[in-house]
């Protein structure tokens, strides 16, 4: 089994105050961790810092390997990252775009090994993108683009997967398909970290939760009813209601008098 992903004293500064400060946490293989917090809490910045795409102070390591010291391609073979916003500059096909996920293994569009092709096919099947393969990426809807970009990140087949709001643009069927896919990857022994806003999905799929507020880590807890009852009102000033059918689903009620 792979090593835990460990972050210590992570800090990202744009200007004062820092975007995130003093964040330490541990992410174990086999678990799906949700990062939860209000808008502007620093969730995306934390994911960017862990992915190594913003200048960051602090430690990010897996076992003995210091991820910040690795060459970009070596890091990309251990850790894949799906940004929140999908920039697709040219009208390349979905299949070519997903194949870019194999870059760290020496692949390029039109130059894929059998292993690369198999990984691309698996990723497209898992996200339901096979029918989109020959579409140009600039003609995709928001949800289709989100699925195709997730496929690209899955194609890297890394031990660690960092995804920023993977279901924000998706319809309910696709939301559950993607969450089931992420949960299956975690069950398969990968370390999956997802920024999620839909707390009902968090309650149903996540194993642990990082609760964030104002650029700091409020707590890291298992995804239990007690944890939701304690942290959700503190972070969002709303009280969650748990479904009475015994599932983990939860929802919120409209405020009185509105």
């Amino acid at each position, binding site marked *: 089994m792979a090593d835990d992903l460990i972050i210590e004293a992570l800090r990202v500064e744009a200007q004062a105050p820092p975007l995130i400060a003093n964040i330490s946490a541990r992410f174990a293989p086999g678990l799906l961790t949700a990062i939860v917090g209000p808008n502007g809490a620093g969730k995306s910045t934390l994911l960017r810092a862990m992915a190594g*795409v913003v200048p960051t102070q602090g430690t990010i390591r897996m076992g003995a390997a210091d991820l910040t010291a690795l060459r970009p391609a070596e890091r990309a073979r251990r850790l894949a990252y799906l940004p929140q916003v999908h920039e697709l*500059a*040219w009208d390349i096909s979905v299949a070519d775009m997903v194949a870019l996920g194999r870059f760290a293994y020496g692949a*390029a569009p039109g130059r894929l090994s059998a292993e690369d092709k198999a990984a691309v096919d698996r990723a497209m099947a898992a996200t339901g993108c096979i029918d989109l393969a020959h579409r140009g990426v600039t003609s995709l809807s928001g949800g289709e683009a989100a699925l195709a970009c997730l496929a690209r990140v899955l194609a890297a087949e890394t031990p660690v997967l960092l995804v920023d709001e993977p279901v924000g643009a998706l319809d309910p069927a696709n939301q559950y398909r993607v969450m089931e896919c992420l949960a299956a990857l975690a069950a398969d022994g990968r370390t999956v970290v997802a920024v999620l806003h839909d707390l009902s999905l968090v309650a149903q799929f996540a194993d642990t939760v990082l609760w964030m507020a104002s650029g700091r880590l409020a707590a890291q807890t298992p995804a239990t009813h007690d944890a939701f009852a304690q942290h959700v009102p503190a972070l969002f000033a709303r009280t969650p209601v748990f479904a009475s059918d015994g599932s983990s689903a939860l929802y919120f009620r409209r405020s009185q008098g509105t």
Partner: protein
Amino acid sequence: MTRLNLTLAAMLLLAAMLALATGPDGVSPSLFAGWLGGHDPAAAIILADIRLPRVLSAAVVGASLGLCGAALQGLTRNPLAEPGILGVSAAATLGATLTLYFGLAALFPWALPLGAIAGAALATLLLASAAVRTQGMASLILVGVGLSSLAGALMALILNFAPNPFSLSDLVNWTLGSVANRSLADLAMTAPLILVGALFLFAQRANLSLLTLGEPAAAAHGLDVRRTRIAIVAGTGIATGAAVALAGAVGFVGIVAPHLVRPWTRHDPGRTLAPSAWLGALLLVLADLVVRILPTDNELRLGVVAALAGAPVFTLIVLRRGRGASRG
């Protein structure tokens, strides 16, 4: 993809043969045959000393501009980028005109090409240091725009202080862009530099493809963004500087060639590089042929024809993008 490159290369070869065989009296295959047969000394002078360097210059400059345009568009993820946008062409033109202004070009024949390359090298150095320091691509483009404006202002200053009408016309002529009266010696000096720049750029093919995703996602997939940026800036700097040294300022080929080949390269920036170079060469060889056979009193300049044909295409691309058509 290889088929596209072969097709364009074959078309370039045909266009080059046509250009070699065409003179003021029209197409003369017999002159061509005389030269190849080795029994016509006049044909050898006309073809080997006058037409061949001219056709080769047009091809080499066109290839350089097409390739640099494709690479810069991939780097900036903007189909309107070209060597001019980073100010390298303007700085190279300034370097060349400075040698004309101070009379160095008249004293020492290699002064002008050296001046152009020095201008491009200086601009490239400034851009490379900016590429190391800046985070985003937009700021690098703005540095280029600033550099371009400064070079333009200094050009205006030189024209302002031109000592007499003759040197003014010399200076203006240089800025129009042409491959007339080039020698094989001029080519021998500049073509290797263009090749060096081209090798820098071709090495970045896969990196340019990955940059389709934007810099953060590309970096997460394992791209060394800073090194890629420096290599592309250096490659375009060297290749563009040498091209300007050979032909002066020739615009728009760098925008038009990649735009035209993109539908056949599946819009992939990496696979757009080589066909853009072939098509750039083809376009300039044909444009120079047109310039030679048009019966004007003063020969029309290649740079002028390129701008007259290229500017409307440029505007069309802008308008199509504005209507929300797919990018590129």
